[in-house]
């Protein structure tokens, strides 16, 4: 008997039992189910939620691979800097090397495995307890999480955060589609607030920097935002920042690959171009305002805000997690605004607030995840007012008729 037939028999056998959702999750991963339509439309479009989620994962893969190489590259680059060696950068010679990839494999891959393993386990347990099918939401969350944490995050910390994020961020609301906060960002926020000393500072962004602190081999892992916040000179060129050869969370550094991912998401009609575009616009506007403030000499070099405020507005779009947040996090359809008009407002405010938090919070100079979480909370409110506009139009029409 074929695999197909065997699995079908098993499905029939488990039907109605507690373990059915767990089995079906694996079964439907291999085979599109044999369900047919009943009532309603007799035909259905080709897309299902698995396909939608899969597209997002595909858009994330380049960032992940880049992040693995970059983990190694930043590690060796920091050592060389500490030893005072300067070497010429070349893509094949110093970036896409086996040594770099090896660091990626031992540092980044475990993050991915822990994130998926722990998260899916929680999802399966909840599906079995509540007797619903395993929803696909975590497929994307599980991929996002390793990309938005510092490379040196301990695995146990990640595991604790994932459990917290999935349970509190999603399952208590009723699972995929019902949550208010983006689960991946909930995980990130938990890490940030539960282990603040670990998650910020200038060490965790480069592999091994923490271990070497205080030894003669000490290396620095300062991110660009950190340097700006301390009014230091930044050693990276614009090209480096755009291509992503800079320290930062695993997957967020390469603006170039993120924009490629954005293009793919928009082309496949999975990601909302309205949110992506308006987030960048919002960030640019806030950046311009700050630039204007500096030019008007309201804030001078003595101010602790000067470094980040003086950063040229378009540079704000490339550094930190703004691009990654705009493309992959803000666009999560469940937690974003659901109306098209609302998406413009939602995205714009995310960009605007991101830069504002970034500038005014030099202790931890990254505001993107806080801005998105904040706007997640306000998204239903934005939608409410947009929908009320439609309701008012209808009421007006009625009034015009009766008057």
């Amino acid at each position, binding site marked *: 008997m074929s695999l*197909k037939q065997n*699995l079908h028999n098993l499905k029939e056998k488990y039907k109605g039992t507690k373990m059915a959702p767990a089995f*079906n999750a694996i079964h*439907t*991963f*291999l*085979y*599109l*189910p*044999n*369900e*047919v*339509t*009943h*009532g*309603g*439309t*007799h*035909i*259905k*479009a*080709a*897309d*299902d*939620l*698995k*396909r*939608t989620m*899969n*597209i997002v994962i595909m858009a994330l893969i380049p960032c992940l691979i880049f992040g693995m190489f970059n983990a190694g590259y930043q590690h060796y680059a920091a050592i060389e800097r500490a030893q005072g060696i300067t070497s010429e950068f070349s893509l094949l010679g110093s970036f896409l090397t086996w040594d770099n990839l090896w660091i990626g494999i031992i540092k980044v891959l475990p993050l991915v495995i822990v994130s998926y393993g722990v998260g899916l386990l929680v999802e399966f347990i909840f599906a079995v307890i509540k007797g619903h*099918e395993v*929803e*696909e*939401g975590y497929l994307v969350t599980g991929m996002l999480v390793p990309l938005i944490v510092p490379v040196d995050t301990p695995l146990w910390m990640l595991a604790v955060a994932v459990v917290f994020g999935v349970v509190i961020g999603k399952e208590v609301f*009723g699972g*995929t*589609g*019902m949550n208010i906060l983006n689960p991946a960002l909930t995980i990130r926020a938990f890490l940030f607030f539960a282990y603040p000393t670990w998650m910020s500072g200038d060490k965790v962004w480069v592999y091994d920097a923490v271990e070497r602190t205080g030894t003669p081999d000490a290396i620095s892992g300062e991110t660009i935002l950190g340097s700006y916040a301390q009014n230091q000179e930044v050693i990276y060129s614009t090209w480096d920042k755009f291509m992503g050869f800079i320290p930062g969370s695993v997957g967020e550094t390469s603006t170039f690959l993120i924009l490629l991912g954005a293009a793919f998401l928009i082309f*496949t*009609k*999975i990601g*909302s171009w*309205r949110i992506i575009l308006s987030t960048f616009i919002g960030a640019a506007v806030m950046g311009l305002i700050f630039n204007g403030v500096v030019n008007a000499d309201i804030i001078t070099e003595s101010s602790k805000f000067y470094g980040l405020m003086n950063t040229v507005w378009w540079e704000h779009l490339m550094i930190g997690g703004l691009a990654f947040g705009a493309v992959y996090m803000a666009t999560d*359809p*469940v937690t*974003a605004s*659901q*109306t*098209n008009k609302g*998406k413009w407002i939602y995205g714009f405010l995310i960009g605007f607030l991101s830069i504002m938090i970034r500038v005014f919070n030099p202790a931890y100079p990254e505001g993107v995840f806080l801005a998105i979480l904040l706007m997640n909370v306000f998204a239903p409110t934005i*939608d409410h007012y947009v*929908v009320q506009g*439609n*309701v008012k*139009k*209808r*009421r007006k*029409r*009625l009034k015009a*008729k009766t008057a």
Partner: protein
Amino acid sequence: MSKDIRIKKGLDIKLVGIADKTTTNIIQSSIYAVKPEDFHGIIPKLTAKEGAEVNAGEALFHSKSDERILFPSPVSGKVVEVVRGARRKVLAIKISADATQTFKDFGAKDANKMVADEVKNHLLAAGCWPFIKQRPYDVVANPNQAPKAIFVSAYASAPLAPDLDYTLAGKETQLQAAIDAVSKLTEGKVHVSVGANTNSPLSNLKGIELHKVSGPHPSGNVGTQIAKIDPINKGEVVWVITPQDLVVIGELLLTGKLNLTRTIALTGSQFKNPQYVTAIAGATIADLTKENLDNNNTRIISGNVLSGKEVKEDGFLGYYDNQITAIPEGDDYEFFGWNKPIFNKISASRALTFSWLTPNKKFDLNTNTNGEHRAFVVTGAYEQVFPLDIYPMQLLKAFMYKDLDEMEALGGYEVAPEDFALTEFICVSKQPHQKIIREGLDLMREELG
């Protein structure tokens, strides 16, 4: 203001099996059936008992809430069986047809010489009232209400829909007679919509407001046209009649006989020769599809693939339907069907689905759901196929949690289940939109009247 309706949002679903423009006369079936479930919201009160002899046009049952609304027998013959379901609900009334048909005579009338009440009473008495449906709620019209307008859509945009210009050709006199009559029933206008580039038999009628429609499905849905021409407000009622039913009304006025014969399109990939046949409402499906249907794992649908009803071969043609569709069942697994590139199915996205490359290709879709039921996740997709000025997802959710105030405020009066057929088709979460809307409308009707 231009009277043309042009819509951009929507989706034309192009399928294999468009009906050839040839019509075969089908010999009369031996058994016909009237199914009360075709008339949503009507509780039948039987007047013809088992064994009774009826003429064509004679009432079989009337509505429990209004005994003036009669539901006629499509043929003359003997009531052989009343099929009942759970709690003795009447499922179907089967009539064995006489070899030669006798019609109950209602007398020829000239609508121009009648007043509104006479027209109304005549249509009620002759069993033509069920042809008049109302919005809101998409049910048989309440004869006590006055509609602000009457809408007729003579443009069919649904998948594989019969070409109304072909099926109604030569029926101008009947259509005109019917329009003369029903236009008495409203103070407002009778809006008739035809395709932009057609010579519909309805385009030269008198006493109507003609609209030319263009754009993808659901441009032909009467709900779309109402929304564009004269949207329904709270407290208002519009009536809706299909052009094929107008022909029946017209013939009744001209000849005094209720003749439910109409041209039916046999469509879909499971027909060897998709074409047109003539048949009487309620005919046995097997007689219409004889020697034409490949009935091997086939879904037979009375109506179109979006809002039709599933029937078996020994079932019966729906009372309102002018189309039978047969497509393959999709009860098979597909290896990695959720992530491999898809070329042979329609999709509104481009998520490794490539139907956007071949906009004119005709697809052979089956009944597979292409995925499991999920909570609403994706946003912004429904809006692209939904031309009404309504937030579809918000309305669906309001209908699901049954908040009557919201259902009303978000446009519940303006929609019918068929308006949500396309959103249901493209729904990534495979939610039953039409069912949600139908149940919500029933609740609104019960609570708000």
